[in-house]
């Protein structure tokens, strides 16, 4: 008797747990799988809800894991939108068939062609550049020219960069493979790795800190990390950032490597119309302004002012290779870095 009562109670508890957390499918909602972490997207989503009355449900995790979840859930997936912070994962999602094409005059009108899928499977929502950063006073910017030149012996022991596990590095090498080909990129990578001041470790901010502290002279990092450090309330972060200069490489040819954060509507989206509305909102002027001011990212939409901090970095020419190519070359890039000894 006692046992069966216990059994009943535990079954009821289990049922409650399942029932309370069932996927949200009701009208007036949109479900978002986001590789962008909550703190950096929630305020925008709240604005969207305030403007439209549509509730946004959010799960944030790493892009590759979200993609795996999306693939497994198949046609019953509750997700309407997959949002990632790099092009490679958007391409992987498209290749896996979990995104659907979307035609929207608003999206096509505001996002340049290089930053969206030609068929509309995904759209870039913000840009991040990955230029060469140097310690002011220790490196004369005139010595710098291209990423390719960083393989020259004069930079031996002077370069800091994070691990090749990181998708920003994978995309950067992917873009180089797209323009230079695999063989040339590999021989470049060997020279580049030979110039590392230390075993790759830490994140982008760590590279800048190590450079200022004297461990190396040059670091490769995304622009928003430096901009956020400059805006930081912590005096020591700010002091480090102020010693760093930004050099835009490859300006006479392909341009500096840029990546996107972007999103696509899922193939199984139960709230497709709301999903498109959310994408249009995120590509709209207000949201684009927010990206620039709060996250220190470059807007994809032209005509939106960037923050004063970003403007101080100067104008640049961005690599015009379509973002889809970065994803296509991702696996090749990882292997190439393995062979070049970039850990």
């Amino acid at each position: 008797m006692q046992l069966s009562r216990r059994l009943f109670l535990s079954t009821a508890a289990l049922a409650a747990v399942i029932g309370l957390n069932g996927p949200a499918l009701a009208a007036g909602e949109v479900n978002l799988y986001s590789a962008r972490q909550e703190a950096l997207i929630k305020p925008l989503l709240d604005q969207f809800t305030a403007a439209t009355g549509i509730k946004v449900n959010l799960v944030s995790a790493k892009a590759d894991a979200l993609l795996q979840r999306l693939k497994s859930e198949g046609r019953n997936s509750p997700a309407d939108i997959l949002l990632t912070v790099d092009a490679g994962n958007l391409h992987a999602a498209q290749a896996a068939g979990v995104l659907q094409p979307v035609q929207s005059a608003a999206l096509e009108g505001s996002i340049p062609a290089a930053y969206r899928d030609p068929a509309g499977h995904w759209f870039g929502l913000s840009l991040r550049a990955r230029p060469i950063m140097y310690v002011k006073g220790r490196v004369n910017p005139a010595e710098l020219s291209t990423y390719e030149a960083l393989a020259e012996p004069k930079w031996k022991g002077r370069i800091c960069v994070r691990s090749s596990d990181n998708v920003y590095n994978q995309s950067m090498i992917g873009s180089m493979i797209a323009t230079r080909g695999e063989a040339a990129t590999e021989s470049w990578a060997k020279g580049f790795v030979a110039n590392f001041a230390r075993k790759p470790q830490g994140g982008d901010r760590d590279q800048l800190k190590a450079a200022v502290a004297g461990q190396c002279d040059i670091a490769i990092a995304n622009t928003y990390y430096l901009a956020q450090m400059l805006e930081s309330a912590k005096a020591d972060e700010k002091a480090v950032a102020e010693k760093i200069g930004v050099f835009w490489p490859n300006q006479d040819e392909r341009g500096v490597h840029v990546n996107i954060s972007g999103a696509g509507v899922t193939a199984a989206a139960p709230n497709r119309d709301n999903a498109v509305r959310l994408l249009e909102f995120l590509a709209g002027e207000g949201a684009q302004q927010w990206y620039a001011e709060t996250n220190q990212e470059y807007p994809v939409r032209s005509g939106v002012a960037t923050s004063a901090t970003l403007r101080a970095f100067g104008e640049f020419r961005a690599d015009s290779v379509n973002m889809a190519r970065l994803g296509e070359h991702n696996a090749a890039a990882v292997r190439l870095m393995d062979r070049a000894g970039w850990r």
Partner: protein
Amino acid sequence: MISVAATLPAIKALPRPDPWRSGVVLAALLLALPVLVVFSFVFAPAGEVWLHLKQTVLQEYVTNSLVLLLGVGVGVLAIGIPAAWMVSLCEFPGRRLFEWGLLLPMAMPAYIIAYTYTGMLDFAGPVQTQLRDWFGWGYGDYWFPDIRSLPGAVLMLSLVLYPYVYLLSRAAFLEQSICVLEVSRTLGTGPWAGFARVALPLARPAIITGLSLALMETLADYGTVQYFGLATFTTGIFRTWFGLGDPAAAAQLAAVLMSFVFVLILLERWSRRRARFHHTSTRYSHLPRYQLRGWRRIGAIVGCSIPVAFGFLLPALQLGVWAVDTVDAWLKADFFHLVANSLMLAAITAVLAVALALLMAYGRRLRSSRPVDLAVRVASMGYAVPGTVIAVGVILPFAWLDNTLDAFMRAQFDISTGLILSGTLAALVFAYCVRFLAVSLNTVEAGLGKIKPSMDDAARCLGLPPRRVLREVHMPIMRGSLLTALLLVFVDVLKELPATLILRPFNFNTLAVRTFELASDERLADSASAALAIVLAGIVPVILLSRTIGRSRPGHDQTVC
């Protein structure tokens, strides 16, 4: 008539369904499912990527993982056993404080201690910057140990994992019949020899259990090695799966990782061989502790202080400083939501995991056979598998089940049932059970193993069915072990990150998720408040744990030996 009569004996001869055996095997199979699913990828062809791995990075993965295992193994034993011996059998000022203080590092997730030490000791951190300011050094002028290195990772993991060895060996020392020690003393052994030749060998099963938990946790660690930029099996699995897009090769790497675990388990079995560790005397008396004096007393105090200071106080202090710096950022309403979510998940999982462990451990005791033993072993391997791999192993079968049911219902009744299990807390709790069963199972088995089989026989002779033997005899005797298992799982779930991240439902966050999100955005200081909350939430069960063990010494009021 004749034919019926002829078949009757045959029916009688059929084995009766055995609820214990089938229950254990079923539960074990269910829990082994995620690991088996991932393993099934092994049979997919992956020749070419595997060749690439072999030519470039595989050797590094093997070497680094083995060195890490060896280092952490030595580290946790060197800290855990002496500490347990000192607080259990010696008397010195502060001993009662150290009893629970030594457990505190357990509340500190490995990735968080790695973040804080890197923040402090990195080249650009305050310590080295201060040194450079004082002495006018520049880069390359001086030598300073690199925290983001293999030895650094060994140190970090040893500091937070030694409590497993400490905890289990302390419980073992306390439960040892004093008669054994006194007999050894009458035979002329001193305190050192008594420790080395009597207490230590008797405590060996418990120590090995603690060691294997620590080593499995080491193998599954992703946060620390990834942050330190070390190429190990875990980082390799991720890179191969997601970077190279090859789940088959990743599963094969995971298979190699698992074979390490199998070797560990076999070694342990082999080392025990025929030895049994039941105590033959059930008489206990007050432990006469060795009174330490002079330099020994100072040595004990310093020796016990070091792991507490470096494994807990210093990193917690750093987190506290950061949290105060960013106080307005975290004192938002949803912070308490996070705390509540974390505690709820931890509590539900702890109860479930211990119930499952009891079922399996007792099932094995009742019906020990090769299939049962194997099923239980396989089910508890999840502890050495990185959380993300478990998560994928949970997602695949659950989604398959949901989608198959949905397709069936659509075809038959034109009703869509959608996803029933996927994306729910039930899936998440299941993943936790898979991941942490080993923790509860090892602890419960250790407790059950100390109860002499003659107790079962006596209880059964007196007419109790097995279920009631468990409830009325074993569970009260091993209350300490059960509580230990509950609290260990509780603390582990609080700290768990990767599976939580990927399996959780919409709009559901925990402390670990918040910590990770901020830390992965390189905002260590902002992540400190959530990290500190994990640590604080973990302290309460840790202290409870210590009190239970202190009281668990059977018959501590008897004085006759």
